[in-house]
């Protein structure tokens, strides 16, 4: 959290429209159609789930702050808007993004330590030579045009906590919704405050009954959102509606007065719903195999 979001490089250079993002990816694909046919990969979101879980494992071993993991995920996304994933070793990119993000979020880890831990997790894909990470760091910084500060929605969430009198359960749930949004393209598409508002709405409106560490078990929230989901969208569209309970009405009143882009918030909510739907197809084994095959047959780990 530094500097001003509105003047930030994130807003000026790393915010895309959906169409633009699709074009960029189509462009990358056009460049190497062969690789695309030869090495099919799962849905981007499923890959993101896999990356996020792997990062989580790495972070856990070194007890890293959540915010550094979030920054690392954004770095990976930015990097893969410039580079076709099929020409990289994703494990190396992941480790380096983690290493750089830790420095950026002021919780630096020694490069040897990071390499050691990464090798412990993925011995086939990470070389013992630390200079690989050093080089990859250089490349990462260069591809991101040395624009390294990432603004996250977490701070907005804590700021709004008092204003919207959120309960600690709601904050915890909104927090994990924010964690989940890194599995989608949302960080490249919307400003952090829109994401934070979306997370708060999801937490307040849908309140899935069981919210105990649902990371990896998206079913409760997904179904809650499917069931109760449409009233909030309806309520947002029709402010005079008399449907939702008072607490939700209060939130809607606040939203209506704020200048937050409500349409964007709704789009984010839908994106999240579809993430939870696609999540049901997730198979760690599948991701691991496809990535492994790709890296090995193209000798990207060298």
């Amino acid at each position: 959290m530094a500097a001003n979001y509105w003047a930030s490089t994130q807003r000026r250079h790393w915010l895309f429209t959906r169409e633009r993002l699709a074009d960029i990816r189509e462009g990358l694909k056009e460049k190497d159609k062969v690789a695309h046919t030869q090495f099919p990969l799962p849905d981007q979101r499923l890959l993101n789930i896999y990356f996020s879980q792997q990062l989580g494992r790495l972070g856990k071993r070194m007890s890293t702050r959540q915010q550094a993991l979030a920054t690392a995920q954004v770095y990976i996304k930015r990097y893969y808007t410039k580079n076709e994933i099929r020409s990289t070793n994703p494990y190396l990119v992941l480790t380096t993004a983690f290493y750089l993000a830790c420095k950026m979020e002021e919780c630096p880890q020694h490069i040897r330590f990071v390499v050691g831990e990464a090798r412990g997790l993925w011995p086939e894909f990470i070389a013992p030579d630390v200079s690989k990470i050093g080089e990859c760091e250089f490349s990462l910084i260069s591809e991101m045009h040395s624009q390294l500060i990432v603004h996250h929605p977490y701070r907005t969430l804590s700021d709004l906590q008092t204003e919207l009198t959120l309960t600690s359960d709601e904050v915890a749930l909104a927090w994990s919704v924010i964690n989940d949004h890194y599995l989608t393209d949302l960080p490249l598409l919307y400003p952090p405050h829109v994401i934070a508002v979306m997370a708060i709405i999801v937490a307040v409106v849908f309140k899935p009954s069981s919210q105990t560490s649902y990371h990896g078990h998206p079913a409760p929230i997904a179904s809650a959102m499917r069931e109760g989901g449409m009233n909030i969208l309806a309520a947002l569209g029709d402010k005079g509606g008399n449907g939702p309970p008072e607490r939700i009405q209060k939130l809607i009143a606040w939203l209506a007065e704020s200048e937050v882009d409500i349409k964007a918030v709704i789009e984010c909510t839908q994106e999240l719903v579809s993430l939870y739907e696609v999540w049901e197809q997730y198979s760690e084994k599948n991701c691991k195999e496809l990535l492994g095959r790709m890296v090995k047959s193209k000798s990207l780990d060298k």
Partner: protein
Amino acid sequence: MAFSPLVAPSPLATAPLKKSAVSGPANPVQENESFPQLQGGADREITEQLNDEVRHKYIKAKKLGEGTYAVVFLGHLRTDPSSFVAIKKIKVNTEYKDGLSMDAIREVKYLQELSHPNIIALHDVFSSKDQNLNLVLEYLPRGDLEMLIKDSNIHYGLPDIKAWMGMLIRGVWFCHENFVLHRDIKPNNLLIASDGEVKLADFGLARSFADPYLNMTHQVITRWYRPPELLYGARQYSGAVDIWSVAMVFAELLLRVPFVAGNSDLDQITRICEAFGTPTEDNWPGVSKLPNYIPADASHLVPVQGRDFFLRQFPTAGPVGAELLMSMCTLDPRKRSTAYQALRHNWWASEPRPTNKEDLPRKAGGTKKMGDDLTRRGGELDDQFKNAARQLDFSAMKA
């Protein structure tokens, strides 16, 4: 969120550095659609081309200075030999094994986002053939404040000091308004542009305000400019640390010698107590709980100095100036002026008026000085003190 009234945030055209490592052998040509004019470049990678374009924008003329961590060159635009820049080449290769140093990361990170007349501008970043990171910085040919303070042939007065202090505090205000702590304010980090504008440089120790309750290191800020809370080992602190440094620069400008120049951390805190008063629970609630707090000898308590002391000690500042200085070196950081409060002080509105920046005293030889300043690592004192002061360990684990 802060908008300086003075600044129109200009998009910094930064170009990518050279591509490397991550790509495997079957490396497709990259496409970058934000630069459509370059898409024709068949077999070379666009990012590399872009980097070359930026690199070719500049010509490195001569070396200005070299330190352990960076080399600084004087450069200029290829298209316009009269528009100078300073190119700071960070020695990546030497530190390759450890990744990029925190200093370099911090410098790039903050200068990319902060754009203000009183903060050194970062024009471009590119990589050179040997995979070194090059920062293209604003050219500041008139040296730094330290040079002017030390040169007894240079005469300056209160209007000049007021002009310099105004520019310094505006720069610091902008940092704080954007949640950035500089953490190494001192005269030789205050560089002077050709039009006389003072620019805050060297962001190698800067960081964002920590989230509440998260710890930061107290081993920052060059000793003579370090506030008592850091000397006492505080791990949670605010922009007040920079304000103390600003006050020390103010005092030094007035006296033309450092006001409290300790030769060890312990000596520094002793001198602060002697000069400004002994911190106690009365004048600074909570001070005794700081980790490195040393209880004062009851027989040797110095009372907190009031206005009279500052007036006596800094007669040139005048009564209103002395009051501003006093408000910026209050022992208790919570009671110290903020940059915003300092800018609202009525000293600025009272006589004498500050000198126009074009008419400020100047001294030759500034270019060389800039070279030295930009190669120095954060937290270092002058050369003769280098080893004594170099207690900072950047290798890792500091926050």
